């Protein structure tokens, strides 16, 4: 740290504290350059940080899928059934399903559901 810098620091910190700051700044400053860095620059490979970051969206999707399928069985039924039918039919089926989904062993095909819906009417 040169005199100019020291003067600025001294106007804000006590000498004791400044000595500690100097020691810590020296520690931060003291970094060795990786031995193979020059070779890496001259023969570039895909950046590992880019690879790391490109994996993040994939991790997020995996986490989402885990959360989605790790919910109660009731939700799983609804997801699998709703994926097989159009959005217009979803609302109608929901009213039928809300009754039958109380049973954990509930397992019906779409044709069976349509019969149940007819009977409901």
């Amino acid at each position, binding site marked *: 740290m040169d005199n*100019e810098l020291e003067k600025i620091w001294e106007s804000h*910190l006590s000498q004791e504290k400044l000595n500690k700051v100097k020691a*810590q700044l020296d520690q931060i400053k003291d*970094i060795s350059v990786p031995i193979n860095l*020059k070779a890496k620059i001259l023969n570039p490979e895909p950046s590992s*940080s880019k690879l790391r970051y490109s994996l993040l969206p994939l991790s997020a999707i995996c986490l989402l899928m885990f959360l989605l399928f790790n919910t109660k069985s009731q939700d799983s039924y609804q997801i699998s059934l709703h994926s097989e039918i159009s959005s217009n039919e979803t609302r109608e089926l929901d009213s039928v399903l809300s009754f039958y989904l109380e049973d954990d062993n509930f397992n019906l095909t779409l044709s069976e559901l349509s019969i149940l819906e007819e009977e409901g009417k």
Partner: protein
Amino acid sequence: MNYNQLVEKHYEAVFRFCYYFLGSRQDAEDLTQEVFIKANNKLSTLESESSAKSWLLQIARNKCIDQKRWWKRLFALKEQVGALQLESSHSPDMKIILEKALNLLSARQKEVFIYRHFMDYSTEQTAELLGINPGSVKSHLSRAIEKISKDLE
């Protein structure tokens, strides 16, 4: 000056700058490589050998700022948690406080602080590298030190 000479002469300074700016050895290493890839692609725009260092550090600066922005957006929450942990810590390490305080400086203040404290450039050399006048360097430096000192109190 050809590409190999450019790398030979300046890769250490670029790496150091990236490390001080980002605080991560791995990120600094990756970014240094990216800086030189960009430099190689734009080598024809380099005006003279004497301005090579300043040109490379300018590329490094922009890359570091982009990286910080990206990182900040993605891990804003992580930073907040880190800050809370720091605040709740009974007796935080001064080095950690210094690094944290450095991260809170504006890009220009941080840049000036790095050149003057870690890369041993004088006020005049820093001014020349950044294309600003020495008075502005002093002013950015004073504000940076004032901010850091407040965090250390």
